[in-house]
């Protein structure tokens, strides 16, 4: 069953005299339990794609369905409701609230959903020990490392069992050890609880953890790679090769 179904999405900025088309008809289907990464050069529109897929930005044309529900025509209030029910976010710069402790940050999405305190505590314990942040639950963001921050951010994204999780360059600000830690955790969660993750990245190593890689170029899907039964190293080589072809200006 398709969790996310985007058909012919267009996105352009500017007015009718000076139009900049960023997305030019993208079709994308993501099945439940997939770990998809979106790759592309700077300016290819990958972040814009993530923004429209995650309802933070509006499309100019086309429809996007998540769990069969089309949200492109929704009002601000419905959208907010939709986001808190169905979506989870991980950002490059963590986006944790400085004034809240790790636990408070993680439990934030549950508090809008009016989950009981006991249930929330249970959830936190489960996800926090999964991501290895249980010991730092009462610390403030400025007291923990970047890797721990990003795992906190990830815990916040997973805590309310969203239909789909969007990650925007989650490893962008991390050192390689923390990055591989995080990616391992993500793919573990992906397998264990069958979570659906869409990740934007320009790092081929990060992309090699995924089950599928979508390459974007000039606002269109250029090609896709499936990992299938390959090893991660093999898949990584494939990605590098594709990127090499894709990367040139002359293409």
């Amino acid at each position, binding site marked *: 069953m398709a969790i996310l179904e985007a058909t012919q999405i267009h996105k352009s900025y500017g007015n009718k005299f000076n139009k900049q088309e960023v997305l030019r008809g993208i079709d994308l289907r993501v099945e439940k339990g997939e770990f998809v990464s979106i790759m592309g050069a700077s300016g290819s529109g990958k972040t814009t794609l993530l923004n429209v897929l*995650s309802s*933070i930005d509006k499309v100019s044309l086309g429809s996007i369905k998540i769990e069969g529900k089309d949200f492109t025509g929704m009002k*601000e*209030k419905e959208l*907010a*409701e*939709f*986001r*808190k*029910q169905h*979506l989870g*976010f991980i*950002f490059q710069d963590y*986006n*944790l*609230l*400085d*004034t*809240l*402790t790790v*636990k*408070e940050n993680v*439990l*934030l*999405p*549950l*508090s*809008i959903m009016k989950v009981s*305190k006991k249930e*929330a*505590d249970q959830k*936190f314990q489960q996800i926090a020990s999964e991501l290895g942040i249980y010991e730092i*639950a*009462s*610390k*403030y*963001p*400025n007291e923990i490392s970047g890797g721990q921050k990003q795992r906190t951010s990830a815990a*916040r994204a997973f805590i309310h069992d969203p239909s789909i999780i969007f990650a925007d360059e989650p490893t962008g600000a991390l050192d390689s050890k923390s990055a591989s830690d995080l990616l391992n955790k993500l793919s573990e969660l992906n397998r264990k609880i069958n979570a659906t993750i869409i990740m934007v990245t320009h790092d081929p190593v990060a992309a090699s953890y995924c089950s599928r890689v979508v390459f974007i170029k000039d606002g269109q899907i250029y090609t896709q790679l499936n990992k299938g039964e390959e090893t991660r190293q093999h898949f990584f080589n494939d990605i590098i090769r594709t990127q090499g072809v894709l990367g040139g200006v002359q293409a």
Partner: protein
Amino acid sequence: MNLNYIIFRNLKKNIKNYYLYVFALIFSVALYFSFVTLQYDPAMEEYKGSIKGAAALGASSVLLVAIVAVFLLYANTIFIKRRSKEIGLFQLIGLTKGRIFRILSSENLILYFSSILIGIFLGFSFSRLILMILFKLVGLEAQATLSFSSGALRQTLIVFGCIYLLIMLMNYMFIKGQSILSLFRVVSTAEIRVKRMSVLEILIGLLGMVMILAGYYVSSILFSGKLTGTTELFATMIFILGSVIIGTYLFYKGSVSFIFNAIRKSKGGYLSLNHVLSLSSIMFRMKSNALLLTIITTVSALAIGLLSLSYIAYYSTEQSARHSVPNHFSVLLPEDAAKFTQALNGENIEYTETRRDVIQIEADVAGIVGSDLGEEFGNTMILPVVSDHQVEGVDVSPEETLFTGSNNALNQFMSLRSTGQIELRGLTLSIPQQLVGVDKDAVVSQYFSLGLPTAIVDQSIYAQLAQDLDPKLQSKSSVYIGIDIPDASMLGKADAIFHDLGFSEQSGYMSQPALIFDQKSSMGLIMFIVGFLGLTFLITSGCILYFKQMDEGEEEKPNYTILRKLGFTQGNLLRGIQIKQLFNFGIPLIVGLLHSYFAVKSGWFLFGTELWTPMVIVMLLYTALYSIFGFLSVLYYKRLIKESL
């Protein structure tokens, strides 16, 4: 695109952000200008003689300038910090520091001096209104006409010109002292340092609350008679002031975060959105603004307190005049009374006359004085004594005495009980009496009572005492003559006659209307000045809190972005912000109101006879005006939240 274009564009952009600053500037210029205009106005001349109105206005205009100058300089530091990035950018594209300074100066010049011109214009139009308010308050029935005074204009321009130069100097130092890199960093060095509560902070928080409460407690017993010596009293007042002010500082520094932290702890990490936006943010922010908030709280408490006290005095004028002299007029000698009534007859003014024989008797009051103060006087007082036959509606038995015309301040200082044993002593006699009560209404003038209560005794006792007088204690007259004018419209005329007969100059001759007028005019002027200074302070401090909120909002904008991405609606966020602002503006307000309440309560009886009505009116007015800034800041946040995604 030349430099002028840049200046113009900046100006346009800034006005939208700083409309409140411009408003505060215009307001303060207008107020200052009208104060100075009053000072230069010939109409004040006649007023000058009696209570030095112009001098008081002059002194308060200096205070006004001080408040405004501090405000403008402070606001400027906030603004220049906000623009540091822009300044850095200008330097980056190759403008010299001197050039940038010139851009800023000319920008400010236009903004500042156009506000001043508008302010002067408004000030001139309002000065007549202000003069009318003043006349109304002091009870002067004069036509409020004003002419434009070039002296006032010159003074206003000079004063605000100086402030402008100071601001420029500050900007110059700021630009000079900063490198490009540090300018870019100014904004990003956040004020808050988020840390967990340490034991020290908890102690500070507790200490703050204890100190405030201790100050309140001591203030409530300040005038209760337990403390008597002047130095003791003075030391106690200093203690109260110090304890409350330091306590306030510690309160903001620790107590607020301590209390909020306790609430947070109890949630076990599961915070609702309203808590996220209000508790967690205020916890850390109040701490860094502790000094500013302490100053604002203290000065606003001072303003509310002074205003309440002067309003209490103003409000109780009639009562205290009646306390000084129970009838409309009082003369000492019977022949003067005859002269006065003759004159009244001549003008066809009806009157009623009251005569009471008064003797001065030594009384032993050891049985009713609660404080140690009595010891110093050997527990005796010289009291005026009146027979119950001569006071309407009073009848006491031969064993009983009724005190009347007691004074609030005296009651407090001596902690007089309203019942107990006393002894009235003549030259040889000593008559024990039971005090049955203390009334407020005076029956003789202050000339006889000197602020002490009057003793009403049974006719038989009065006769005994009158036979046995100590001549040394008696005053020039032994009869109180009071004259009432039943027709209120004739009162003014009667007062004029009283004045014409030369009675108003002599001691012991009293006129209620003149007393009321005197007190109204002095208290009215004080109220007028304190009121306008308080208003200026209120508006400037409200603006500063608002600017602080603007800064805070900018810093927290990324948080709103996160929260909206997580699925909180604008409405959700706004509700949280409303709660936050309720605390942000409410906590300093409530602390300020509490401070002034205890200050007023400890000494109000020295000023008048009515506590609640005047104080509550002043406090409500203050709260209402203050809340406006809270609402404005919520509106600002609303825009910010809307823009955040």
